[in-house]
């Protein structure tokens, strides 16, 4: 498995996303630049310039027409993917830590930071795909305020039925995206261990959380029941569920602030593969020389990419053994 090394950023990566077809990869970093890459060969398609601060988050609309980014300059920007122009800017009182399109692309959520007297919020914005892409609603249609612990990450469940948010205190909550009511809140990770990532399964019925408490958990979107737990020996920054094969990929490593005091040997800067059902660790991919901040999987399950504190994105296209590997019991199940 030879990785393709994408060295287009000057500072650490914050998030990477494949588009719905998997032919494009979008990466954002603290260097304020948004990059688009061909996932097949790692060629850079272009950049989206305009943010005034570190870009924390990116998401692609399901039809690959619009790109949303959230930044430390307190804005969410909407870009025309094809032309690279910024079609809309929404201003927020604080930095935007996460944006996510709903499964049908009709809504966009933005998680804002708690700072300067403002509580953390999750804002929901209606998105339209008319002739003029700039014709978007000026104000969010809904604002959910997190009174207790601020949300760090959020995403949409199947049918946009729930908004699922991960919190700074290690809990996960479920909101109704129509009314903004909190339907449930479950302390799934150790208390006060921030949840750093939430990613959904292809059918969005379950999702994986990655936490500072050195574990990742698979939860059902409907009941927020813990289905699986994947223990690691390092704080985790990101986790992804692979389609096609029953794996999960976890990324993390020694916290960025401790990196200078620990050797690379101890940093544990590896992408870890676990079997989704059996919870066993089955492999690791090395390469980064800083913690992995973000991982994402190709929607077809043929490749994955990781972005690190070291400023590089590495795209790995899976080899045959990856697809061949199977537990004996799985093989039996197949034969039936």
């Amino acid at each position, binding site marked *: 498995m030879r990785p393709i090394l994408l060295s287009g950023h000057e500072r650490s990566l914050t998030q990477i996303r494949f588009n719905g077809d998997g032919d494009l990869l979008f990466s954002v970093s603290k260097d304020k630049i948004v990059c688009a890459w061909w996932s097949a060969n790692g060629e850079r398609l272009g950049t989206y310039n305009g943010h005034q601060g570190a870009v924390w988050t990116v998401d692609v609309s399901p039809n690959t027409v619009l790109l949303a980014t959230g930044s430390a300059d307190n804005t969410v920007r909407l870009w025309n993917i094809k032309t690279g122009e910024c079609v809309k800017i929404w201003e927020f009182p604080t930095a935007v830590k996460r944006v996510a399109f709903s499964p049908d692309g009709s809504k966009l959520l933005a998680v804002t930071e708690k700072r300067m007297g403002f509580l953390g919020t999750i804002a929901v914005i209606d998105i339209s795909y008319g002739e003029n892409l700039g014709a978007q609603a000026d104000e969010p249609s809904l604002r959910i305020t997190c009174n207790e612990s601020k949300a760090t990450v959020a995403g949409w469940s199947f049918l946009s039925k729930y908004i699922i948010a991960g919190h700074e205190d290690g809990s996960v909550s479920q909101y109704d995206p129509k009314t903004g009511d909190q339907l449930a809140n479950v302390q799934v990770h150790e208390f006060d261990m921030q949840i750093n990532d939430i990613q959904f399964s292809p059918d969005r019925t379950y999702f994986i959380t990655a936490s500072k408490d050195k574990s990742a958990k698979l939860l059902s979107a409907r009941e927020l029941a813990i289905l699986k737990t994947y223990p690691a020996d390092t704080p985790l920054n990101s986790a992804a569920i692979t389609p096609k094969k029953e794996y999960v990929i976890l990324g993390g490593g020694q916290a960025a602030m401790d990196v200078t005091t620990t050797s690379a040997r101890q940093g544990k800067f590896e992408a870890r593969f676990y079997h989704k059902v059996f919870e066993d660790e089955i492999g690791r991919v090395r390469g980064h020389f800083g913690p992995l901040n973000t991982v994402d999987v190709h929607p077809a399950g043929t490749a994955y990419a990781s972005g690190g504190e070291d400023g590089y994105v590495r795209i790995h296209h899976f080899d045959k053994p990856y697809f061949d590997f199977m*537990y004996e019991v*799985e093989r039996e199940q197949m034969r039936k």
Partner: protein
Amino acid sequence: MAPSFEQLTEQDLHEEEEEEEIDFSDLKAQFEVKADEGLDTFVVIDGLPVVPEDSRQKLIKFLLRKLNTVGHTSEDAVFMPLNDKGMSEGFAFVEYETPEQAVAAVKQLHGVPLDKKHTLAVNKLMDIERYGREGRVEEEYQAPAVEPFKEKEHLRSWMGDSNARDQFALYRNDKVGVFWNNKSNPPENVVDRAHWTQLFVQWSPKGTFLASVHPQGVQLWGGSTFTKQKQFPHPFVQLIEFSPLEGYLTTWSARPIQVEEGQPVLTFEEDGKNIIVWDIESGKPLRSFVSHDLTAGPTPEGDVAPKKKVQWPAFKWSADEKYVARMLQGQSISIYEVPNMNLLGKTSVKIDGVNDFEWSPATVVREGIKQQEQLLCFWTPEIGSNPARVAMMSVPSKEIVRTRNLFNVSDVKLHWQSQGAYVCVKVDRHSKSKKSMATNLEIFRVREKGVPVEVVDSLKDTVINFAWEPNGSRFVVITTGEAPTGAAVPPKTAVSFFAPEKKGSSAGNFKLVRSIEKKTSNGIYWSPKGRFVIVATVHSQSNFDLDFWDMDFEGEKVEAEKDLAANLQLMKTVEHYGVTDVEWDPTGRYVVTSASVWTHSMENGWNLHTFSGNTLSENPTDKFKQFLWRPRPATFLSKEEQKQVRKNLREYSKEFDEEDKYAVDIANTAVVETRKRVLNEWLAWIRREKEIQAEEKDAFGLPEDADSPKQALDAPVGGTDEGETVVEEMVEEIIEETEEVIG
């Protein structure tokens, strides 16, 4: 004396809590007396003869002689009341100068006979007031209730394991646990307790007790569930040492003990002392000592270490536990008889300049000697024109068995072989100019008549480590050259294996078997059963290799080493990053290498290997501190029985192999079964989730593929065509290749 917290009973505390409507005049009465400090100097002497008034002065004078042995008092300070008949009452009040003297009088004069008929009973006046006041003493005698016999846990229950597994203690983070070793399977937990110890844990030498160390003292645990066994309340204890047969315990604390009144175990004897020798059986101190200051004696180099370092073990035990000895650096060795703790022969053995001593680890059977005594080896450096000296003393006769003079000595280390058959004296010598160093190994053959000494050819380099094979006659040394000053990397070391020549029944001369150059090794770890040895690089930043050696390889032998009692073979080399400790299990089957957070915080944890270096499991553990195998007591089998076992080993092992195989099979099936179950549960969950979702979609009237991106609301017409980008990828494919030879 002011009431102190310790003196309050549980009941007192309880009563204070609900003080409102309670009449606590009785409490007041109790404490009121104690507040009156003036009575501290008074004692009451009871048990005196009843005398008429005129002979009272005579009695007082007679009594004063005794009273003044512990403090100062005078005739005026003794008050002996008379009754109506002009006779004394058989008691007297005495006032001492200080409360301390009064305490001493109680301690030392109580129960002392005055003459044949009378025995003194001495009590503090305040105690009499406190305990003897009316109502405090029951009028009728009530026999104390005898506690019903409680069966205690078997202290050696772990030896009864049907698979002869070994236990180990694991100290990590704040938790201490005891586990069964299950080879490559995860260890089985016996107990796991948070905050079980404050400093460290330690097994007793035969594995009976696990000691935990707290600011309040040492606590011993034992039995199948590790219940409390014994307590040794030595405040702020820092170091502990068991005697070899688990009869006694030595504890040390840097700060002198302050004994407070009400302490049930410690008495004023222990006040101001640092070291206590305890009797484990009774839990009582045998005797306490002030620790010697190590810097007191002049070191041979002449430079006195500025830092006070505790000499530990301060007390060294003879193999039979009958004697315990302590050295006063440069002056003498004090040998105490156990358990009465009196100096052997009432005096310490004066040895000018004595620098170190070691007991023989076993009682040695010496040729031509009928009365087998304990042996003690010590050495003295060069003093003036006198040569340095290594000598062996027999105890209790204090007779010097053998002595040897040495010259140009800078340091000496004494290494006893585990059975006491040999002592290797490692002598570091310097040249006349004191510029270059060399090491001599002088081996005393203790068992042979007259204790002959053999000098192993002098090694050019300095020896940094030496270890005898347990119960054997081979040894390993590690030497190193001079380190270039200021070099960042430690100098390379050489590992040398020595074995005796084959010569009849007794061991012949020691000869070098092989020397491995250019190593970084610094640690030697012999298997407790001998034969196998690990030579390792520990506490190093850059190297962490472990070489597993076999001294009796069952294969072809190198021609040059034919007449040596060894066949050396490197079995395996293993690396363990940051290794700090190597621990063999007591049977010599497994070995654990560990990296402790006490040394560094990189990749802490422990790895389990077989004796031959196959790694069975790796256990990275956060804040790992200590790994200790539980020692085993000596076997009950006689030599013949052991031989029998060895002979039939194949038979036995067949049985165990089968058991192992069966266990593996069972485990494998169990794993497969769980996996099957888990997978089926997962698939069922997915199916159910799909069904619910489909129902919901129906309810909302959404099409099947509502979530699909192509169905996105307001998607531009024909967006599917436009949105898709064609990635042109050039793929070269060789369809056919032909080769033509032209011409």
